[in-house]
């Protein structure tokens, strides 16, 4: 399995300390912001501290979770990454991705959740040790909680000056999934909204153990109903244990909003606290990584990078990227901008906020350049084109692949193929390599 070794390097551990004003949560970041003497991205006071603390703990919990362990990986030591923090003009976001690549979580803190005294835009990893996670549980509603994100917040730790370095092999599929999940979120649509008490009851009623069988969740008459049968308006759910992270927070939320991506079956479960929002995005199956969904493959297969470059030049840590404004600034059509944004999201430069319905700018703090070239399906498709094994025949195409000739033909839902991958996944997980090869050839 391809992996990139990423060394998380911090000047010390993040800490929740007692301070003169109450408690201070000093999150130590990997990078320091440019042009900041204090070395801080953020210095603020949490206005709803219990929600912020529990939300951060939830982000950290998901980052440290693996909901599915492939048999071949059982013996391997599972190391975890750290959450990613983005400080934007009007929102601070903490996001994380489970080790199994099937679950994404993000805590959005809007301006009325923080009293900000210092802010520098940027994205960075933040250290989140087990001790900090435990301490966050003790933050109550009345706790005065300061929050800072910076590279030099803790310079002296136990045993004198200490550099914390965690070398973590980050699988390419993890990096790709972390980026691509944004495109999956962008395609989601709202389904229903559970009021607080109904949401609490629903989460409490879910099976306590691991439950990977297919369930459907619907909402009617003030209660959520879970069934093994698909009914009108129900959302699919598998691996319910992934939702458990929301349970301690639900009592503090106004409601639980549910979105679904009809193409992939991924769902989003958002707790709305008013000034903060916690998003938990689950892929359709716990053993399925977002990286394999391939929703953007057709878009990124295109060789035309002009639009992408033009749109990229306009990115400046916006919390809401307005396509009309971008169209005006770049002279591109909305459709071209939409494609470019999807491609930028897939390489870790954008996140998607379902609440505003817009992308926001952030730069995943990993070496994403190497990831771009490592998409196996895209690589294989380009290989087929290069070998000259794709033949366009009327409105269909034939693709030679070893001992078989696959027929790629148009249908109402898009291209169809006679390969096993398409037979298994249909259009749910993006195009197969043969369809991609045909698209590349037609694009040339």
């Amino acid at each position, binding site marked *: 399995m391809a992996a990139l070794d990423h060394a998380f390097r911090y000047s010390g551990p993040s800490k929740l300390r007692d301070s003169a004003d109450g408690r201070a949560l000093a999150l130590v970041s990997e990078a320091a912001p440019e042009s900041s003497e204090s070395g801080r991205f953020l210095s603020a006071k949490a206005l709803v501290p219990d929600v912020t603390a529990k939300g951060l703990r939830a982000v950290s919990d998901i980052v440290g979770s693996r909901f599915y362990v492939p048999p071949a990986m059982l013996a391997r030591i599972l190391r975890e990454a750290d959450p990613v923090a983005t400080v934007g003009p009007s929102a601070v976001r903490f996001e994380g991705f489970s080790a199994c690549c099937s679950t994404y979580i993000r805590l959005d803190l809007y301006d009325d959740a923080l009293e900000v005294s210092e802010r520098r835009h940027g994205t960075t990893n933040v250290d989140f040790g*087990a*001790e900090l*996670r*435990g*301490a966050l*549980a*003790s933050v*109550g*509603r*009345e706790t005065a909680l300061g929050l800072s994100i910076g590279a030099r917040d803790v310079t002296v730790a136990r*045993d004198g000056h200490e550099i914390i370095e965690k070398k973590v092999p980050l699988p390419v599929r993890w990096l790709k999934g972390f980026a691509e999940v944004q495109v999956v979120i962008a395609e989601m649509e709202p389904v229903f909204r559970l*009021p*607080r*008490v*109904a949401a*609490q*009851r629903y989460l*409490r*009623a879910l*099976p306590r*153990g*691991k*439950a*990977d*069988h297919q*369930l459907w969740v619907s909402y*009617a*008459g*003030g*209660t959520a*109903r*879970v*069934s*093994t*049968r698909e*009914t*009108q308006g129900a959302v699919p759910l598998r691996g319910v244990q992934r939702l458990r992270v929301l349970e*301690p927070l639900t*009592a503090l939320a106004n409601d639980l909003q549910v979105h679904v991506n009809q193409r992939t079956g991924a769902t989003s479960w958002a707790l709305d606290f008013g000034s903060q929002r916690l998003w938990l995005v689950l892929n359709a199956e716990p053993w399925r990584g977002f990286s394999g969904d391939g929703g953007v493959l057709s878009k990124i297969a295109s060789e035309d990078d002009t639009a992408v470059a033009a749109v990229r030049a306009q990115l400046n840590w916006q919390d809401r990227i307005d396509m009309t404004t971008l169209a005006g600034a770049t002279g591109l059509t909305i459709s071209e901008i939409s494609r470019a944004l999807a491609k930028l999201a897939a390489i870790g430069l954008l996140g998607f906020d379902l609440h505003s319905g817009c992308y926001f700018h952030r730069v995943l703090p990993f070496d994403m350049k190497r990831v771009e070239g490592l998409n196996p399906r895209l690589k294989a498709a380009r290989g087929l084109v290069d070998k000259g094994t794709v033949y366009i025949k009327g409105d269909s195409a*034939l693709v030679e692949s*070893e*001992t*078989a*000739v*696959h*027929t790629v*033909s148009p249908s109402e839902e898009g291209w*169809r193929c*006679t*390969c*096993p991958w398409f*037979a*298994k996944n249909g259009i749910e997980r993006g195009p197969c390599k043969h369809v991609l090869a045909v698209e590349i050839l037609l694009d040339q």
Partner: protein
Amino acid sequence: MREDEDFLSFVCSSSGADVLKTLAALPEKERRHGKAVSMLFRKAFLTWFADGDAEKPVIKDPDAVVVAFFATCSMTDLKSLRFVPHLKRVPLTEIFAALRPSWTQEFVEHMVDKNPHAIASLAPLWKAGLCERPKGDALILGYYEYAVWRTSALEERNLLERDVWRFFEVGGGGEYSLANHDKFAKSATWSNRLLKYSASGRLDRQRLLDASLDALERDFSQYIAGWYSRFHSALQPTNEEQRDRARRYLTLLSSAIPPTVSFAMKHVQALEKESALDPLDLLEALNPVLQARAKGTVMAALKLAERVAKKDAALAGRAMSKAVLALVSEDAGVQSKALDLIEAFGGAEDEAVRSDLAVYVDLLAPSLRERAARLAGARTPVDTASALAPAPEAAQPVEPVANTAAAISLFLQVLEDARDPFAVERAIDGIARFGAELADNEIAISPLRKRAGQILKLPATTGLRMVLAETGRALASPDAPMATPEELGQGKLDPVGAQAVHLARNAEILRHVAGGYRLPMLSLPCDSSGTVMVETLAGRLPEYRAAGVTPGITDLSLALMRLQSERRNGQAYDLSCEHETDRAFAYALGEEVAIGPNPSLWAAAWRARPGNAVDDRITALFKEDLPNCGAPARMHLEVDRKDSESGEFRWITVQVPTTPIMRTRKRILPALFFHQAKNAYFSELGSGHTFAEIAWASLIHPTDPEPFFREAILAQDTYQKLSDNPTRGYLEPFFRPGPNVGQMVAAVLVYYLGCEDASVRARAEDAVLAAFATDRLEEAAFGAALRTFILADALPTGRWTKSLKAIAAAGAEQQVRDAIGRVLDFSPEATPRDIGGLLELFFELCTSTGSLPEQAAILRCLWGIPGGGKVSKFRKKLLDLAEA
């Protein structure tokens, strides 16, 4: 230095001391032959026993190889070591003192980090000053390893001055934790040892008390955290010591670990009794506890809130607001207690409390809704019993594939995913209709040839997938005929199972395809009920006659088994009785025809024939009495409990004996194979072992599923939990239009509701709801089956209670109430365990449906039920309700 061979010869023939002396005389850089020594080391200690052909090297003194290894190896070799090699004569310290390797520190830290067990071997090195003592967490984990501690490898001075305090920072995991150590250490526990140190003054008691609370604030798992709470309790903090830590206990009430919350609650309760807590702080800290899952914890928190309100009337409002939070509990007892508190302190007059309370009214137990509504000043909820979950859709037509492209596409699809039996049947029908054209189209058929070949080579291919792949292979390569069940998958396909029938049917179809015919598959279901309409089959058979083709016996047998019950008037159809197949069809419609000679076909025709009256001409074809082969099979359910000799364990045994007794396992006979299943022999289940296979088998005889459900009962292992439990496939018929439920079917539903596997229970709950919604399941049959299983007292009654609660909540309140009513008819000595929850549910359902428990049998049963607690409470409530 000599060449590799000479050097190895020297090592193998010398003592460890001699090799050490020789190598120690050389500077580190000049000690070569590392690769060769490393190989020798591996052969001598690691791999010779794993490789049967390898000879163990002849070595005079194994210590010599270890010395040579340490003298010449690279860091890569060292890092691949999983343990420190054992030495017999030369101590490790002597080797390292003589060789002085530059990598000693790195090696020691690496080994300790990798395997804390290595500390016992390596500690002498740092004790001798040959390296520094490692500082990482792994050293602390070493203390948690029983064997390491026993060897006294670790110095007591270090332990008491530094390391012991890190016990409270390093939780560990897996086998390395204090909890795990003490669990298996009998009396030699770390807990006892630390208590002794504390008692003797060698460890600061106050620091130990604080450190254990520090540990509980860390993010340790429940198992690991348990040690620290137990240790804190074992220190028996005095009242004063508890008072000093009052704030810490309150903080721990928000712990994510339920036992830690319970632990903190005990101390908080003690402190509250002494009035050592600020009441406002206490109420604030109770927030998370009041919404905990554990009933006992919430009840304790409610009591605390009540005491605060009693002590200070000014805080009653706050206490009531907190009590409202507890209403999120699903437990009626907790809800009732919370309402008691609200009522007692005048919640009905408090606007804020009333407003908060109103949100919960509809979600409370039915018996409490009216009371809560009165307190909240809200309207009493009308019976909010929701409508039953949607019934399965009416029968939807099964459309045959339209063209060659659709046929190949669907076939490739079912090769990858065959969970939908209708898709499988459409795919085979597609082959029957378009296979001849496909076979001539090399481009179209090539993906199928390739994929079928790949699947057949897979080592773990299931029966259904093998059958489909073999069908695809034979279509794409007509020169090699279809394999027999015995040939396919090297005996993995049961020759008398459902997939053997499937294979035989597909082989018949491919024979027609090979002849260039485009004919419909006779057994293709007409709609989603899985049945074949009489007029459709009557229309398909003439196509065969017109083509001069004799229908396949298996295909026709399946078609007859699937024949719809309606419109069986043979005279309405143009029946030719020229061939045996035509006569069998006519016989299935009730006509009198000449019988034989093919037994399988006639058994199927007999099963399809209305009434299933005994027909000696059919039984004569078999030369022995067989179930459902000319005479109906008779089945009855036997549910029993078995106890282990010690009485500690009990388990359920479920049998469904059938007469006549089936003694043969030789025939492929669609009419028969469900009766071949024997309990406890999973491999003898005719339907198969995967969801897809079982779902396909459920279509074999959709109009009389009793034998299929007999197998469903025998196939279930109630104690097994699987991530994709195939037995859920047995419930598929409930989600299709179908016949009314019989005795065996009700038993399947009830039995499956009692399974340990939550996925099976959840599916069974939906199956019950679907059966109720379509009026296919009578409360009487369901209640009778429920009574049989619950009174057997072999499985926890709580499982049924939980499922029945879910079924009632989904709209089947009256049906569930009536079913439980039928269970409540037993003598006092037959009372099953754990019946309290069921009585509580019955009480709530009687309240919500307004159906009082008036029947004499129920009242007699209630009067006689022994037991206290919940049983006694709800027995009394039910009797009161009956009197009212």
